[in-house]
């Protein structure tokens, strides 16, 4: 009975993935390859043999690798600062750094160009101060800009997953090493880094998958020269309606994703160490001027890199086409300018977005937690199947899966329920990846001791496991929420214009000419940022009763 119950529970995430991922994917692949076989084979061979295919595959892989390395390099020091130090405005800063995650590329791109474009602020300043005739920064439509924006979008993944894990590390080991005369970098290298490795690896994997399937950034900022496999799939599936080729490319994309995951699992296996939670390192105020400068300096650089483009966007929403400050774009959001049947005041759009995000949390958190528990069991029969299955949605083309839903989902296709379900597919890997390292780090000896002392399993879980796990759960909750808030979804899903979300309002406004429309898109983007930041701060605030004791 108990075993059956547990098995049923464990079956839930697998069932979810089978119904909402594997089945639609197989359905669209079957439809795609239903054309007479010789034709498919010859087309596929032709594509596989063409240099442009290998060029796209190669570019996709190396840009994703480089983007990941850069993101980790930028994110790691920030993760350290967030884990080790306490400073004013820390919670707000953490929320702000996650905002890029929800921003549509189409509004972020002009903000970047306004800063570092040919006539951007930086170039104008450099030209004026050094008397240059040509703009020194020529980043438009270069790989440099793609990498930069990938770091911008994904650095929060590293800061949050690694930082969250880092703050759970006990300082004792480091202090012991210090007492034995180790220098700070030696401590980092021999003690901290090995302990952090699982979470760094998990964050890298997520960043890699996001960059590997990058679409909007490459299309909008990369110009014609660059195409990822995802971009190529879109062209084949949408522009040319060549489903067999799109399916072939999707399979290639999945193949690479799968390979990366196998490598990841191998590396991950030897890395986990359980952490004794005698005491948690309490983040503290920087001790001296040197530390204040370090923290302040790092935060200033981050602010410039991540927050400046966002700030540029906010400023434009108040000043577009007007020398002074104006609120007209915000006012326009509340007016049905065209008497459109699909008009929704901003409050309604915010409400729709929040509702979908809450539903995404309700689906992805429990499923993710169950999946993580399954994966954490030694010799789990399910793990071998579940682990790759969970991550594959991140490496799957949105167009392909969207077409799969159309073919396979029957009456559910146009249901609003499909929205949080699809968002959960993307959110699940985040929940599992940030929960699993924490789960594996639980100290079995402590729990055994608790049991021996007569604690019931529930009490043991509550006093020993929960405090460690809740942080990880909150981090994944923040991601799941943000993923849902920012997802535009028209590619993946069928949209109902009478029930728009915030990103839908932004895209709607950008689809017709006129300054008011552009301004409304900027204003709604600003609101999206504010709602995201506010929600994330609220999520972060959540504490277990008694957690402060640690």
């Amino acid at each position: 009975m108990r075993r059956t119950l547990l098995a049923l529970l464990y079956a839930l995430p697998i069932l979810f993935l089978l119904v909402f991922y594997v089945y639609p994917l197989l359905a669209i692949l079957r439809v795609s390859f239903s054309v007479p076989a010789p034709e498919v084979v010859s087309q596929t061979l032709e594509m596989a043999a063409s240099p442009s295919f290998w060029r796209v595959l190669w570019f996709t892989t190396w840009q994703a690798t480089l983007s990941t390395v850069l993101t980790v390099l930028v994110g790691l020091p920030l993760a350290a600062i967030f884990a080790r130090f306490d400073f004013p405005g820390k919670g707000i800063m953490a929320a702000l750094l996650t905002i890029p995650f929800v921003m549509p590329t189409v509004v972020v791109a002009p903000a970047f160009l306004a800063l570092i474009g040919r006539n951007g602020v930086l170039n104008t300043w450099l030209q004026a101060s050094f008397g240059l005739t040509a703009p020194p920064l020529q980043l438009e439509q270069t790989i440099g800009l793609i990498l930069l924006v990938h770091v911008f979008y994904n650095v929060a993944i590293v800061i949050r997953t690694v930082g969250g894990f880092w703050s759970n590390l006990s300082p004792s080991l480091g202090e012991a090493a210090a007492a034995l005369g180790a220098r700070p970098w030696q401590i980092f290298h021999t003690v901290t880094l090995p302990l952090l490795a699982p979470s760094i690896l998990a964050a890298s994997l997520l960043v890699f998958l996001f960059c590997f399937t990058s679409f909007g950034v490459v299309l909008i900022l990369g110009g014609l020269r660059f195409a990822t496999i995802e971009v190529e799939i879109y062209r084949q599936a949408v522009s040319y309606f060549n489903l067999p080729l799109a399916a072939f490319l999707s399979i290639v994309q999945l193949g690479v994703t799968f390979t990366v995951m196998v490598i990841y699992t191998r590396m991950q296996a030897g890395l986990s160490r359980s952490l004794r939670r005698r005491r948690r390192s309490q983040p503290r105020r920087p001790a001296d001027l040197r530390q204040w400068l370090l923290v302040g300096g790092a935060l200033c650089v981050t602010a410039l890199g991540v927050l400046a483009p966002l700030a540029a966007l906010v400023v434009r929403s108040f000043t577009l086409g007007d020398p002074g400050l104006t609120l007209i774009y915000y006012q326009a959001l509340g007016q049905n300018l065209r008497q459109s049947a699909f008009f929704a005041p901003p409050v309604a759009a915010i409400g729709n977005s929040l509702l979908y995000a809450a539903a995404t949390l309700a689906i992805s958190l429990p499923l993710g937690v169950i999946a993580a528990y399954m994966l954490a069991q030694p010799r789990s029969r399910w793990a071998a199947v579940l682990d790759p299955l969970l991550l594959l949605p991140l490496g799957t083309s949105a167009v392909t899966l969207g077409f799969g839903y159309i073919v396979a989902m029957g009456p559910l296709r146009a249901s609003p329920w499909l929205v949080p379900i699809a968002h959960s597919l993307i959110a699940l890997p985040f929940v599992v990846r940030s929960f699993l390292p924490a789960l594996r780090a639980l100290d079995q000896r402590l729990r055994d001791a608790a049991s021996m002392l007569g604690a019931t399993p529930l009490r043991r879980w509550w006093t020993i496991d929960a405090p460690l796990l809740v942080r990880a759960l909150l981090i994944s909750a923040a991601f799941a929420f943000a993923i849902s808030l920012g997802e535009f979804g028209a590619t993946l899903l069928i949209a109902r214009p009478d029930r728009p979300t915030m990103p839908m309002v932004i895209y709607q406004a950008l689809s017709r000419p006129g300054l008011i429309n552009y301004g409304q898109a900027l204003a709604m983007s600003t609101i999206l940022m504010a709602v995201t930041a506010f929600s994330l701060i609220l999520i972060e605030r959540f504490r277990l009763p008694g957690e402060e004791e640690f």
Partner: protein
Amino acid sequence: MRGDCKLQVARGAGARGFAPALQGVFGASILLLILVMLSACQPVAPGAATPTPLVLASHNSFSISEEVLTAFEAEHNATVQVLTLGDAGEALNKIILSKDAPLADLFFGVDNTFLSRALAADIFEPYTSPLLEQIPDELEMDPEHRLSPVDYGFVNLNADSEWFEAAGIPLPQTLEELADPTYRGLLVVQNPATSSPGLAFLLATIDYFGEDGYLDFWRSLKANDVLVTDGWSDAYFSHFTVGSGGEGDRPLVVSYSTSPPADVVYATDGRTEPASVNIFPPGSAFRQIEFVGVLKGAAQPELARRFIDFMLDVQFQSDIPLQMFVYPANPNAALPDLFVQFAQTPADPVIFDPTAIEANRERWVQAWVELMTE
């Protein structure tokens, strides 16, 4: 009682003791789900006869006035659910894929660049609306009336008239002039592989310069620093001087002949004349027509046909210009003054054979992409 039960199960889970955690999370999530479900449910309106539901599928740019939609719903005791399926290409492909179990009763938004794909897929039921008599013959492209024309528009060049005046440069009169050093770095266009106006403009140049000549023209544009963006929004709002509110540095853009009136309708400075103007160098304007059709296997074919009549009739047709910024197919519809004044139509637009587009699209676009990236 419930608590006891929980504990028992928890013990049963063995020394690991994961189960209570799972149950707690699980219970909480079910509660959350129920809450979300409750708030998503809408009360059913009490009424004498239940209205017939009609589902219209379209692309993301579909729009209609509240008043006009309600008029149809009231007259036919119907509720119209609109589904948007992505951009024009994506939407059509999704409709084709759902052929065996149709997503909707009718689909609006097939344009002439996708017409042959739509007809070849055999997804539309013929319907000859009596209203078609009012529509000019030149807009009808399907003799079997599976698709009926609803609106049309032109993809053409827009120029920032104030910029050109200030710079003392005359507006370009021919396409060839765009390769002239005078116009260096002034033009922004869209990638035909991902953008419908981008494809339309490429097709116009293929028509004008011929299959042997269009690549040479584009080579000279490339040498003259033409900027290519992925889609219309980015070109218009990030780079076009008018659309970006002064941030962009390209005073020439590939857009629509109806963009200038939008510049007035959506002005923030109370202007009565647009800053952008249409220019029509010979062979540069491409005519797009949008069609609607009843889907095979529709649940409500009869009501769908009534909706097509409604779409072709004067009320809906007069609603088109300021909702979707295109011209109504029915000449009896009233055109807003702004359209009459500022949305001029080109005298001799490029009218391309849809079959040729579908047959050659990939080859032409691919050749163009290779040229522009070499």
